[in-house]
């Protein structure tokens, strides 16, 4: 572990703007920023979904215009071509996260990837009285599938608590694992609200020592920093294309091969079978065992192009850019009176920052900002228990990607002063 430290242990953010790529020049590669509109788009919601570069849109269009055919079925030329493009995307994703291609299962999104584990692994393995450890900072995607399972199987859910500054209280983990009933520790790699980068390798080590598996929700990490699933030492990782410059509609589950092979299928249908008789079926090999029905082919092709785009930028450069922006944002946000930042200091977080502004409701904050073309997220960001823990009903969040610029943060600060003018006492 630690061979690729960027994923697990954040170093200090660079002092000067990172020069590996120029975000202003990069924006020209993203058609949405060149589309004429009343006010230029200042997009600070990349944690919800990232924008898409031209190469992604072109790759999808090339598929539809040039070789649209179903995969793994036809033996004609364009069907072969489509199959090759789909599997090429899988190989690229696998290499991107340090996995073997057959360990990458395409799903609809991260949520479905977690549900896949909850159904195919947990329901075939766990029994009443077993326990699962989650954390207080989880997205609903890593809570609700386990609520459903817990109710069905009498599985106990335990939670690693967080500190007031939004970090996991790791000292609580040994106690949660002590009775040997925990079968899985499932937790977020980078929090979508706090930005906190969790110590994945350490949590996985403790989980394994207690006889449990470890799964990460990597929705906010794979798109932003170098993630090597093997180096991190986890057993499953869920992430999604649309946050990593790719299209919506396709997500990924990575799982260790021996686990995936032992698991029963998730959804039944075409493609996932080896042989079907009226009385029953046998399953296809990995990864197709988990890919029932026609998959999002164009989306896989677009995702493959997004991975190439990210690799060309370099994930270390993307991460450094995120961290430079979040450092700048945290510094400037202190200028706004009554503003409370949720989560840890810049050195411990990824490229996002959520905050509250006095008693002004985040919807009102976001609506006033929208008048200046600034797109931020307002609400509970699918993390209601976390907001309850922090004692706030909702928050406003600004989040970044490679095309984000300092001037967008400057506009945000100006906008927040306007919000106070409208709603201030």
């Amino acid at each position, binding site marked *: 572990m630690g061979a690729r430290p960027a994923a697990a242990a954040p170093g200090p953010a660079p002092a000067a703007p990172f020069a590996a790529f120029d975000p202003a020049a990069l924006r020209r590669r993203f058609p949405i920023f060149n589309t004429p509109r009343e006010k230029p788009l200042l997009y600070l919601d990349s944690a919800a979904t990232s924008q898409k570069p031209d190469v992604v849109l072109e790759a999808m269009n090339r598929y539809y215009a040039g070789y649209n055919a179903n995969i793994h079925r036809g033996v004609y030329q364009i069907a072969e071509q489509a199959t090759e493009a789909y599997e090429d995307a899988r190989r690229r994703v696998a290499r991107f996260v340090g996995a073997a291609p057959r360990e990458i299962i395409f799903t609809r999104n991260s949520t479905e990837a977690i549900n896949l584990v909850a159904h195919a692994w947990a329901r075939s393995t766990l029994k009443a009285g077993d326990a699962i450890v989650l954390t207080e900072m989880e997205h609903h995607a890593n809570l609700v599938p386990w609520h459903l399972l817990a109710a069905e199987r009498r599985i106990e859910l335990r939670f690693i608590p967080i500190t007031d500054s939004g970090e996991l209280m790791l000292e609580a983990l040994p106690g949660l694992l002590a009775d040997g009933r925990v079968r899985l520790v499932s937790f977020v790699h980078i929090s979508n609200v706090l930005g906190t980068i969790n110590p994945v390798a350490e949590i996985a080590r403790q989980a394994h020592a207690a006889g449990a598996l470890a799964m990460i929700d990597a929705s906010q990490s794979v798109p932003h920093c170098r993630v090597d699933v093997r180096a991190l030492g986890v057993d499953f990782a869920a992430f999604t294309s649309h946050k990593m410059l790719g299209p919506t509609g396709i997500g990924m589950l990575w799982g260790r091969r021996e686990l995936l092979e032992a698991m029963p299928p998730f959804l039944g249908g075409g493609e996932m079978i080896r042989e079907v008789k009226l009385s029953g079926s046998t399953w296809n090999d990995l990864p197709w065992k988990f890919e029932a029905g026609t998959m999002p082919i164009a989306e896989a092709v677009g995702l493959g192009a997004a991975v190439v785009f990210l690799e060309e930028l370099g994930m270390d450069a993307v991460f450094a850019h995120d961290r430079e922006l979040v450092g700048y944002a945290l510094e400037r946000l202190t200028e706004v009176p009554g503003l409370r930042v949720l989560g840890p200091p810049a050195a411990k977080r990824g490229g996002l920052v959520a905050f509250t502004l006095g008693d002004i409701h985040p919807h009102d904050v976001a609506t*006033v900002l929208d008048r200046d073309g600034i797109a931020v997220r307002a609400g509970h960001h699918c993390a209601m228990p976390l907001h309850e823990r922090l004692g706030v009903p909702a928050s406003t969040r600004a989040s970044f990607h490679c095309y984000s610029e300092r001037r967008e943060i400057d506009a945000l600060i100006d906008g927040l002063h306007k919000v106070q003018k409208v709603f201030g006492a």
Partner: protein
Amino acid sequence: MDDLYRENILDHYRNPRHRGTLERPDITYEDANPLCGDRLRMDLNVRDGRIAEVRFSGTGCSISQASASMLCEAIEGKPLEEVKKISRDDVLEMLGIELGPVRLKCGLLALKTLKAGVYGIKDWPGEVEGEDQ
């Protein structure tokens, strides 16, 4: 500063009418907007078929709070029969603004809560096209 935050909305938001709770309300109902976690509770006392007193409480954005304040102002003292007829368009007219599909739910949370409390209608007002009660 702009159309959405007209003076009447900011006025109701800053100085809400009928904010609070009733001690022993005849009807009390609480609802939430799952999109943003906003909560709203309405307490009503009914006498002789009229809404004698109404109070609202909860948390939410300026649109949902102003809409609750305006709705309470509009219904106190009115016969239930008349209140029954209040539609989503009436509330939007009171607010005097255009709302997109997301903020629409903020604007209609009070009416939804009122209707659920008084008549047990739990759908969002006007959720289904052409169905506006």
